[in-house]
């Protein structure tokens, strides 16, 4: 049976007041490719077509999705279709009134990022003063009865705060905390040398997570997104290419994951030109790596291929230069040495490495360099 999508990530805009150096948005987010944002009506059509195709979970993301003035309308439409709707936000300037309006429109779940456990570090990583807004918004979600996920992207400069972050989520009464070790795509790949953690940092943080999980039980779910560079085998990226998941970008391109747009050897279609069902079932971008017929060795004859699907196509493209290769993170990949070198680099590095903040001028400058 052909797979049907369950998840849709709707990236409503790439505008964002924050400037996180690990942002997974494309480096050229400020460029012409993403400029002409979908209208309210176009998003309605995307949601309807996604639901008819099998989608049940909708993430409203960005950039910063609350910058869209029609967010309440989008939520209402999604809710009426029966989609379980999550808002993925930085909470910058997010008021209680806005959250209440979103609740009334049928929003199911709120995920708010935080960049560190205290204002000083959080604001330094975000590049924009936002810690106060986040803490206020966490409390609003509790007062309004939203299930809350606290999301933290972890890297060299904040891994030491894992315990404080868990305690913060606990004190807020959050349902979940997502401790997402940086995945190296987009801005994170550009800033890899500055963000890469040491093995000792990861080991310490993992010990804290295990201890806190035992202490908290079901009171607070602690999700630990593996630092894949430090693993032996790759992650089962997206549950397999084009099996359950799709991303629609601000100007309507459809990608099998939120990083796939960087694969220059694939052609991506747009919801303005094609029905979503056709894109899912027939477009080159979605069919190219679906299933396992495309797999080269060592994946082809590997018993793990039904568990990890050969890992991540974007990582194969970005690190090994070909999206059709085994994920270079895999210890069986002939390109694993490229990952090992990046991991080893940080252990040798003496001082801190500067990062580039994610911002429109930097985006344009990087795009101009190619």
């Amino acid at each position, binding site marked *: 049976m052909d797979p*049907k999508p*369950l998840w849709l990530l709707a990236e409503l805009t790439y505008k964002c007041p924050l400037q996180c150096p690990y942002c997974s948005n494309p480096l050229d987010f400020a460029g012409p490719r993403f400029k002409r944002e979908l209208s309210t009506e176009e998003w309605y059509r995307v949601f309807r077509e996604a639901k*008819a*195709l*099998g989608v*049940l*979970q909708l993430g409203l993301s960005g950039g910063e999705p609350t910058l869209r003035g029609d967010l309440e309308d989008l939520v209402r439409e999604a809710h009426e279709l*029966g989609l*379980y709707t*999550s808002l993925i936000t930085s909470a910058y300037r997010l008021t209680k009134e806005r959250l209440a309006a979103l609740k009334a429109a049928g929003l*199911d*779940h709120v*995920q708010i990022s935080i960049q560190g456990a205290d204002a000083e570090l959080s604001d330094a990583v975000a590049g924009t003063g936002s810690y106060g807004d986040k803490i206020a918004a966490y409390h609003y979600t509790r007062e309004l*009865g939203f*299930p809350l*996920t606290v999301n933290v992207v972890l890297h060299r400069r904040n891994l030491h705060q894992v315990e404080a972050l868990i305690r913060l989520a606990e004190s807020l009464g959050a*349902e*979940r905390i997502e401790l997402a070790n940086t995945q190296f795509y987009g801005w994170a790949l550009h800033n890899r040398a500055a963000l890469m953690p040491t093995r000792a940092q990861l080991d310490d943080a993992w010990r804290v997570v295990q201890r806190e999980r035992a202490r908290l039980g*079901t009171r607070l*779910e602690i*999700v630990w997104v593996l630092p894949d560079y430090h693993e032996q085998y790759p992650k089962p990226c997206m549950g397999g290419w084009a099996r359950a998941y799709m991303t629609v970008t601000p100007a309507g391109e459809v990608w099998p994951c939120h990083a796939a747009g960087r694969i220059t050897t694939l052609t991506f279609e747009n919801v303005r030109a094609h029905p979503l069902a056709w894109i899912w079932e027939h477009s080159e971008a979605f069919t190219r790596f679906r299933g396992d017929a495309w797999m080269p060795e060592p994946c082809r004859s590997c018993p793990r291929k039904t568990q990890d699907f050969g890992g991540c196509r974007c990582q194969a493209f970005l690190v090994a230069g070909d999206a059709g290769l085994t994920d270079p993170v895999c210890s069986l990949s002939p390109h694993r040495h490229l990952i090992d070198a990046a991991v080893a680099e940080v252990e040798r590095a003496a001082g801190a490495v500067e990062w580039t903040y994610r911002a429109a001028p930097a985006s344009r400058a990087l795009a101009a360099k190619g």
Partner: protein
Amino acid sequence: MTAAGRPSVPRLHPKARLQHDDVRGRDVLLYPEGLVALNPTGAEILELCDGVRSVAEVVATLERRYGAAGEGGVERDVTAFLDGLAAKGLVTYGS
């Protein structure tokens, strides 16, 4: 925690929502970043968890419906099913 032999009232956690999945012809329980596919029995059990009925009353209702009173199988199934969801934080027991 086990539900067996207690006057406890199972409730769906507010973060979870029952939804019919037209495309796949089944019911699902949706929650933040996840879902559980339900078989018809599971969906029926959850519909009976209205925040008023105790586990024993859910069991008794199902036994009446299927004429299986006193055999113990229904109670075992209901308890295992609800405990499984409780372990995921999707069902809570109260009074």
